[in-house]
């Protein structure tokens, strides 16, 4: 089940296709020419239309709107919208320890985020895999905002 409500200040067919692939139900309201923003709410995608922009902006400013503002950062929006509690697929994790695979020429500093592409990502019984934890909303926001700047 999707856990994070958020919105993005853009709307493209490619973005809607990605959300649909992720498992969201894209409402017909998102396909109209006046649909400018997209909102991800509990498994559904709805749009904010051009004529509603002022009201929506007021709600965001006053804090009445509980959705996380992703600006026009598509990667951040997709990462937040993908957050769910029933799978590890497409979820972000944070390395709790530094990884240095010398033979592979790979160095991953502590605190870096990685995306999991499998359904279940768990520690093996011998505890040989590096330590990590599921990224929180704030960690994801910080990561993508630092990537953008």
């Amino acid at each position, binding site marked *: 089940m999707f856990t994070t409500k958020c919105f993005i200040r853009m709307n493209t067919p490619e973005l809607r296709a990605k959300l649909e692939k992720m498992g969201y139900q894209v409402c017909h309201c998102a396909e109209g020419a006046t649909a400018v923003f997209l909102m991800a709410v509990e498994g559904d995608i709805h749009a904010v239309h051009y004529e509603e922009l002022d009201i929506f902006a007021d709600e965001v400013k006053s804090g009445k709107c509980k959705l996380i503002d992703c600006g026009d950062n598509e990667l951040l929006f997709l990462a937040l919208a993908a957050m769910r509690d029933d799978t590890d697929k497409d979820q972000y*994790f944070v390395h709790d320890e530094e990884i240095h695979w010398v033979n*592979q020429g790979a160095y991953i500093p502590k605190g870096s*985020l*990685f*995306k*999991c*592409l*499998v*359904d279940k990502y768990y520690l093996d019984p011998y505890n040989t895999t590096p330590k990590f934890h599921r990224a929180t909303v704030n960690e994801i926001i910080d990561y993508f905002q630092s990537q953008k700047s």
Partner: protein
Amino acid sequence: MREKIETLLKAFIVVSSAVVFLALLSSVLKYFLPGGEWIVSGIFIITGTWLVYRAMKPKRRYFSVCYYVNNMIGNVMFAGEHYTAVLAGKIVRESLRDDGDDIPDDCHVTIISCTEVMKKDFDHAKQQGSRA
């Protein structure tokens, strides 16, 4: 060592059984169908060709590869005659591209592990449609 002896004994039993079976077949054919040796020769050729073909044909093996690329951890399964890190890297890139990720050819793929799996596990994973 014990496994080798067991395999050798099994091979001996199979070959002996085949020779006894064919000798018996040959005798029966000679009794009921005089001049039917060509049938036995035919059976010999067909069976021998099939056995040699089975022994010589490339063996299909199944691999499960766990990888790290572009801050993503995933798993991909593939079937082939052999495993190399270069081949696995190529398969990982293709798999990610199929899923819509833009991965350049020179992008470094770290292979965390590669395990040979059984065909039934491979088929099951493919049925589940997992990329892991």
